């Protein structure tokens, strides 16, 4: 007779990929379906009701972000918003120059938009990925000393090299600077206010990818463009935010379309947008309390993992960090095997290890920091995460890691 271990209660710990739908989003989504299927651009009464829903959602988002409603545009995803922010802002500044300055730890949506820009400028196929640090893809028509993309390095904790940033944005021909508000992979909060000041001094607009911050922590002022993604704060998938402050030049990189002020082509997904706005209002209202509840759990994970798992590197800034996200790498452990082993015990987490990526390349964020990339685990918490779930994770992790090391013959190294 074999003994079957009891099925553990599942613990979803990957809010940084997608947070579970907030209860008010679920409620709003159902209600908005009644009127939200109508095209809000039409001129009959049902369309006016739909338009009122869209306007109300826009006003809600604007209020939470502290901007004007006519600065807020809904896109089909956070990635689409990031692409629009980068490419549209670059297109709006072609007379000034063609250089995008970005941190080495941007989301892949921003990195790829930069590569697209470099390739389009050069009229050639997209170049292969380069190691982060000092990449410089130069368009063929640009002056020899004006790269299309400049990547500013980060330190071991993943924080932007501010002196390097200041120097990079002050160069002639810089059209746009892009900085993630806080790392989606390691949680380190970036010095957005200081970076924004450097951009202001140089007369360069700043785009902030705030996907991990909006609905959780405040984003410092001083930016010209911002993007976010509803499913990171408990809204439904398929809704992104593009915010373009007044006075910022933005030219559509897409075929002409009249929707969303010409900034996001296609009919907006109105029911999802209504749900996203309701979830954002709720998440923002709960943000301080949730941060106060989750940050100690993240601290507990950082301290306990370091104490109970041998040969582990806990990465990211230990203090100036997001309240809900923690990342560590286990020496000699295959990241994919670790995710599967955790999944079998009911833990849903993600990884920046190369074996878990379709490209089989390690995360460019971990590379830029110079930290271990194999055996990597990112744990991200949400409003449904309980202390008991975290404690069960911490209780089971050492045994799971030890088991994988034993299988790999990597014991006593």
């Amino acid at each position, binding site marked *: 007779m074999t003994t079957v271990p009891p099925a553990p209660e599942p613990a979803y710990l990957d809010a940084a990929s997608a947070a579970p739908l907030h209860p008010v989003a679920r409620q709003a989504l159902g209600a908005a379906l009644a009127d939200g299927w109508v095209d809000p651009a039409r001129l009959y009464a049902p369309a006016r009701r739909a338009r009122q829903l869209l306007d109300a959602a826009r006003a809600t988002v604007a209020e939470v972000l502290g901007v004007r409603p006519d600065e807020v545009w809904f896109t089909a995803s956070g990635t689409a918003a990031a692409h629009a922010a980068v490419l549209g802002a670059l297109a709006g500044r072609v007379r000034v120059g063609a250089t995008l300055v970005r941190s080495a730890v941007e989301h892949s949506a921003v990195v790829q938009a930069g590569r697209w820009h470099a390739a389009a400028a050069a009229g050639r196929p997209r170049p292969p990925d380069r*190691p982060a640090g000092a990449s410089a893809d130069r368009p063929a028509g640009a002056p020899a000393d004006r790269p299309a993309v400049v990547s500013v390095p980060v330190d071991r904790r993943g924080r932007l090299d501010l002196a390097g940033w200041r120097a990079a944005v002050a160069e002639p021909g810089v059209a746009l600077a892009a900085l993630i508000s806080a790392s989606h992979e390691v949680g380190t909060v970036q010095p957005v206010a200081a970076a924004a000041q450097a951009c202001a001094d140089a007369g360069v607009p700043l785009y902030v990818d705030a996907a991990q911050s909006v609905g959780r922590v405040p984003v410092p002022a001083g930016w010209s463009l911002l993007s976010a993604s509803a499913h990171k704060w408990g809204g439904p998938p398929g809704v992104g935010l593009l915010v373009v402050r007044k006075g910022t030049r933005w030219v559509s990189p897409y075929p002409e379309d009249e929707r969303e002020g010409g900034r996001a082509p296609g009919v907006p997904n109105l029911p999802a947008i209504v749900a996203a706005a309701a979830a954002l209002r709720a998440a923002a209202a709960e943000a301080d309390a949730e941060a106060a509840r989750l940050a100690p759990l993240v601290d507990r994970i950082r301290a306990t993992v370091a104490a109970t798992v041998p*040969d582990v*590197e806990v990465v990211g800034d230990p203090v100036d960090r997001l309240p809900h996200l923690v990342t560590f790498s286990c*020496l*000699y*452990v*295959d990241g994919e095997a670790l995710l599967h082993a955790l999944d079998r015990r009911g833990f849903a987490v993600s990884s920046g*290890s*190369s*074996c878990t990526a379709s490209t*089989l*390349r*390690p995360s460019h964020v*971990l*590379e830029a920091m*110079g*930290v*271990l*990339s*194999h*055996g990597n685990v990112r744990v991200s918490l949400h409003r449904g995460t309980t202390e008991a779930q975290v404690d069960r994770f911490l209780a089971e992790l050492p045994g799971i890691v030890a088991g994988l090391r034993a299988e*790999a*013959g*990597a014991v006593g*190294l």
Partner: protein
Amino acid sequence: MTAAGPAPDPAGAAVEVLDCLGQRCPLPVIALARRLPALPVGAVIRVLADDPAAANDIPAWCRLRGQEFLGATESSGGPAFDVRRAG
């Protein structure tokens, strides 16, 4: 992994070569961690590894383990990484 004959290191000293070509991370790092302690302090080992993560993870391992990463180079057209046993 096979141990091949000596090859010159950048400083001209003989090094042992650890062939981890075709191995996925973390296998090259495990091979390095197994082999290095068997060498005398000051000896240099060259790891041949073409997994994209090796270029990041071998220096990271050296930092975590207090070993000396000498740098990345090329050997027989493939990526190679030189490590000196520091202790």
